[in-house]
């Protein structure tokens, strides 16, 4: 069986025919060709597929596309605005928080969510906020440093 999915992806209204059993991950990558979101494990254990649905971070591999009806989705492609990298993306680059880059889209989306909920996190809160995202390259410290810096910059601008 198929149905029509109506949702907003990165600010754009989308209306597409999808299958009942299609995951949001599959829909984003295969139907919309937004391949920034990655499949790491397909089982909600690595966070590489993390996107925001109505502002909340979810594993898109465990989210059926059909359930996204009427919802607003932000993928890594929607984090950079008008070709400009976000503060978190810039800070990740500056701090060497990106090596192979495979975890980075999910990690950055989770970081954006973390700061949207907790603008001034401690290092422990950052680690907990990123605990749904695995990285095999960096050892995570660079990510903690990057997020601390963004939080500090934002606070000093207020």
């Amino acid at each position: 069986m198929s149905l029509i999915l109506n949702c907003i992806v990165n600010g754009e209204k989308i209306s597409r025919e999808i299958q009942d059993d299609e995951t949001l991950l599959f829909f984003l990558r295969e139907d919309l060709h937004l391949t920034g979101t990655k499949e790491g494990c397909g089982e909600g254990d690595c966070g590489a597929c993390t996107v925001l649905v109505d502002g909340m971070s979810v594993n898109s591999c465990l989210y059926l596309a059909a359930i996204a009806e009427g919802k607003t989705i932000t993928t890594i492609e929607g984090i950079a605005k008008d070709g400009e990298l976000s503060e978190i993306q810039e800070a990740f680059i500056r701090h060497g928080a990106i090596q192979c880059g495979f975890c980075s889209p999910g990690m950055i989306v989770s970081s954006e969510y973390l700061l949207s909920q907790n603008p001034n996190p401690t290092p422990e809160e950052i680690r907990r906020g990123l605990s749904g995202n695995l990285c095999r390259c960096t050892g995570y410290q660079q990510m903690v440093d990057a997020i601390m810096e963004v939080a500090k910059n934002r606070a000093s601008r207020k």
Partner: protein
Amino acid sequence: MQFHLHCPDTIEEALRVRREKGGAWLAGGTVLLVNKHQGKPINPELISLDKLNELKQIRETENEVIIGALVTFDELEKSEVIRSRFPALWKAACQVGGPQIRHRATIGGNIAVASPASDGVTPLMALDASLRLIGPEENRIVKLTEFYTGKFKTDIKSDELLAEVIISKNSTWSGFVKVGKRSALAVSCLNASMAKIGDKIRLTIGSAAPEVRYCVRTSDALTEGDLTKACQMLQTEISPIDDRWGTADYRRKVAQNVMTSLYHELEENE
């Protein structure tokens, strides 16, 4: 295509679809979609509960807190009522999976899946929670201690929906410990919860038997203040196995250690 997805707007419609098509309930999907990915058999008719907002509330009466079955672990973590009244449940909710999982996984799904390693069931059972099951003809209340009939098996009938978890406000203290291979995204090697209700201490242990266990005789010994006897009774009331998350021997040792640790925590609190 593996399954047909139904998305009812109301509980009545959901029950009607279930009656007509059979099918399996789909809550947060953090178990069902893992099974799908692993190639396990999936019911060809899935009934999404995502639109049933009346099951997403936490409400409080004079004597009880009632948690809708679709309340997520993230919502439990953010609830001041849960944090202050049922610290064991709150602590458990904070340790389920990671943020993304907690945004989707529901307390009702966790109870209904009936995993022996469930992190939600262990504190709820210590707090002597009950469940409201809704059917097309009638609703019924079942004690959580009577809900499990075996490994991954519950007393729920084929036309019923788990709607609410009911916890009485009569506990004066509760604690929870989770032991796992890492501090997030980990299935419990062992978990334990203890609650004080009136003069009675209740101890529950998870991941050490085919279902989460309310250790009755151990609890009686703890209530009597006899920790030595409680340690002996404990080993007769759990039946751990060796699996990828731990050995039976390790679980027996750890169960005794966390029970002792919770007991001391309770004593300090009094």
